[in-house]
């Protein structure tokens, strides 16, 4: 008889603790202001340990007959992904040119990790819709921009 009462008391106590923790978390979620630098997604990820969205950095070189600027590369990648997978997917993949050296024709593209394979598949048709046509040559893929920059610095400059 006494043992049953003790078990019931323990269960009630645990339930109360769980409810209190949940209540505290919810109140923090409502009360904490979201700053400009911290997006709502990041805040939620830190509060409820949602997996952070990871990126991949693709070091690439381009081969073309004329000079190509940053905007042309950015738009051609986005357009190629839109053609193969549709605009919603292309924008969700967030392919972004974060570095481009016009002299050496080397650059770094950032993309969401889940969409890396789609980006690579669409490189074949990217930059072919207007002159000068571009050939993207993927060189190396890294998980951090620091490593990607190191690779670019390590590559020999063209003679």
């Amino acid at each position: 008889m006494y043992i049953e009462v003790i078990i019931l008391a323990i269960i009630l106590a645990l339930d109360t603790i769980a409810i209190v923790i949940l209540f505290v978390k919810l109140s923090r979620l409502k009360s904490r202001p979201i700053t400009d630098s911290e997006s709502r997604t990041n805040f939620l990820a830190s509060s409820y340990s949602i997996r952070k969205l990871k990126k991949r950095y693709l070091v690439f070189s381009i081969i073309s007959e004329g000079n190509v600027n940053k905007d042309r590369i950015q738009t051609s990648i986005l357009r190629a992904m839109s053609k193969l997978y549709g605009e919603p997917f292309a924008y969700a993949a967030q392919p972004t040119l974060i570095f481009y050296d016009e002299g050496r024709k080397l650059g770094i593209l950032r993309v969401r990790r889940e969409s890396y394979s789609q980006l690579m598949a669409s490189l074949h048709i990217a930059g072919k819709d207007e002159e000068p046509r571009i050939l993207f040559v993927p060189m190396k893929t890294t998980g951090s921009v620091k490593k990607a920059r190191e690779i670019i610095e390590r590559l020999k400059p063209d003679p």
Partner: protein
Amino acid sequence: MYLVDAYVRPAKADDLPAIIELEKKIGYKIVGVDDRFFRHSFNTDVKIFPVRVISAKSEDEAKSLLRNLSKNEVIIAQAKDVGALRTFSKDRRANIIEIPPRLSPYLDRNQADLFSVGKSMIGFNASNLIDEPRLFWWLSFLISYAERYALHMVVYSGARRFDEVIHPKVVLNMLIQAGVKKGRALMIIGMSRLEEILKKKVSTQT
């Protein structure tokens, strides 16, 4: 296993050295060149072999084309009609067969048996994707068909200019996106079946 680009078709003869140099730079060891340009000599480490493309709109035309073939060339047969497709696929002289999307209703088990009889491979020209990106679904379809009936598949650049050359990593990811597992995609890029055919061709020459 070597990286093989089974077919390049330059628009002008002057473009060919640039294409071959680029293929070498990005890692290809063996390149198939359209037979119209094959006679030009190059100083390059890349091994090149002649490829002839034939195209037929009917069974009779396909048969007459197959009769006049040289044994030294790898043959890519473009079937424009179901009769031509059946003739090409059961004939051992046609090594790679390109199939247009409108013949998809005829790709069934019987057709797969014909491919097995002819020991031919299903080919996909990646330069078609540049003009028509929607053909990506067709690549997926062909790959699933080849996987289902254990047929060989080839993806080649068909480059007309140096900027149409396709990087092996891009081919790999394209195949993965089309529904192949990575290990199988690597086997398709390696093209061991094409190497066998090339060895046979060389042995018949000597």
